[in-house]
């Protein structure tokens, strides 16, 4: 019996371990290390309606135990994804979760419609980007806009919808409830925390875009607290992420309320982390005499 079988409502994975968007490409770059079909799912690099060249370098830097990135959603656009990336990705034998972004509510509708095709297992909706039409306010910081995005995506696809929350808000539970009522099937969290780093020799910001998204081990306590709060606030499953580097980290997220987890920055440090976590969770269950990992989802709330 598969102790790791993972049911996120109508979306099913062979195990709850996924890799986070933007840290794993489409999977191709990691094929030499292990059989990608071992993974529960791959959240592919963020896709937008049109091709985007991305931000000027320097795009990434290590700081205070984590990393800051400002890639600027560089990608070939949704047509390129459908024609050149998806055909290979869908042969990997794992769930392909397509991460989508837009600069207007309509963009999200368009993306959801275009990606309602064979080979796409679910859509992960990145709302940590600016709404150009509404003066650049980030979709994911305004509950009304986040609700509208979820609803727009819902109206344009029958695929499972994963709404990815931004941690850069005062009340994460309100955001989670907004996307749940908008039609989200699943919540993934957290995206990166906005941060910066300064080169004291040159006396200027290191990242060309000045600010960027902070990820890696230092954000784990923040992410964990947010998963814990959201678990209490909604009735849909959560995919937890933020600084997961090993089995213990993954178990903490599951006990805080996540039904699945995702490894991001960890893939840069050691590409085998997701595989080690799959083994590690199995071992933990064996040691505790448990027959399914679902027995420990939300365990920390008891």
């Amino acid at each position, binding site marked *: 019996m598969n102790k790791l079988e993972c049911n996120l409502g109508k979306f099913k994975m062979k195990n709850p371990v996924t890799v986070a968007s*933007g840290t*794993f490409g489409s999977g191709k770059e*990691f094929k030499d290390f292990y059989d990608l079909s071992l993974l529960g799912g791959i959240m592919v690099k963020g896709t937008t309606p049109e091709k985007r060249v991305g931000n000027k370098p320097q795009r990434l830097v290590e700081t205070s135990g984590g990393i800051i990135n400002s890639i600027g959603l560089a990608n070939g656009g949704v047509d390129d994804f459908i024609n050149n990336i998806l055909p290979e990705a869908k042969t990997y034998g794992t769930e392909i979760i397509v991460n989508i972004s837009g600069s207007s509510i309509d963009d999200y509708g368009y993306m959801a419609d275009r990606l309602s095709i064979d080979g796409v297992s679910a859509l992960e909706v990145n709302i940590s980007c600016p709404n150009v039409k509404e003066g650049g306010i980030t979709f994911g910081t305004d509950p009304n806009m986040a609700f509208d995005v979820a609803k727009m995506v819902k109206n344009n696809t029958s695929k499972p919808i994963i709404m990815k929350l931004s941690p850069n808000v005062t009340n994460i539970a309100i955001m989670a409830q907004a996307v749940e009522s908008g039609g989200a099937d699943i919540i993934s969290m957290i995206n990166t925390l906005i941060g910066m780093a300064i080169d004291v020799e040159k006396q200027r910001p290191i990242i060309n875009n000045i600010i960027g998204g902070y990820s*890696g081990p230092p954000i784990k306590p923040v992410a964990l607290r947010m998963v814990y709060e959201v678990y209490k606030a909604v009735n849909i499953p959560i995919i937890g992420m933020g600084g997961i580097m090993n089995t213990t980290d993954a178990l903490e997220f599951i006990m805080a309320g996540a039904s699945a987890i995702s490894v991001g920055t960890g893939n840069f440090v*050691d590409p085998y982390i997701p595989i080690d976590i799959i083994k590690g969770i199995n071992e933990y269950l064996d040691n505790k005499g448990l027959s399914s990992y679902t027995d420990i989802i939300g365990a920390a709330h008891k």
Partner: protein
Amino acid sequence: MIFKNNGIIISNEPIIEDFVYLMKINEKNIADIAKPGQFLEIKTGSVPLLRKPISIFEVDKVAETISILYQVKGPGTKNLSELKANQQLDIIGPLGTGFTVKKFDNKCLLIGGGIGIAPLYDLGLKLKESGNEIEIVLGFSSKDTSYALDYFSKLGTLTVATMDGSLGIKGTVEAILSNYELNTFDKAYACGPEPMLKYLKTLEDKVNLELSLEAYMGCGLGACLSCVCKMTDGTYKRVCKEGPVFKSKEVSFDE
């Protein structure tokens, strides 16, 4: 094929104490397939978090070893300098696209600045094996901070420049190259600090030139898109995948 293996350190000796080190590692899989200009991503310790990109300095397929030549800059390279023989080293590689190696009709020129000389030595060895005649031009800041000259002088005619004139010609590699008939070379290869590469780009119409670039890397595997450099056509390419070696005419140093 890309491997993530634990290599065994055979030796790790300072060439100049606290400054430049040469490490030899037993790692069969990588030694078997590494090509000149490719690099490794090395986990130097628990901190820093990220792996560090380091070029392959020399490959010995028979002895199943690879060597790296590195300069201590910060925490990661400092960690490397403290490792001892027989310890394990967590390495991913070989990575990236290296230099073009083939038999040319006329001479080849290697141009290196500072620690940028690292990827040129294995290139020189392979060019020589292919039957090429090689000239080498290296630039350092001073005699005291110059190194590995004994390696390069084995490859062909070596000319050195130092900023303070304490060894060879005074100035940068420009002081040497300005007197060269570059069109007598079929190919030139360069690696070094960005100002040097910018200067060399101005010579790209005189000689067929390949440049090895550096960029800050997240994954080293082509997945994160952090390491990009600008191309003359306005697009960005990944230094870790399409690079680190590019044709000079492809790359743009304009802001």
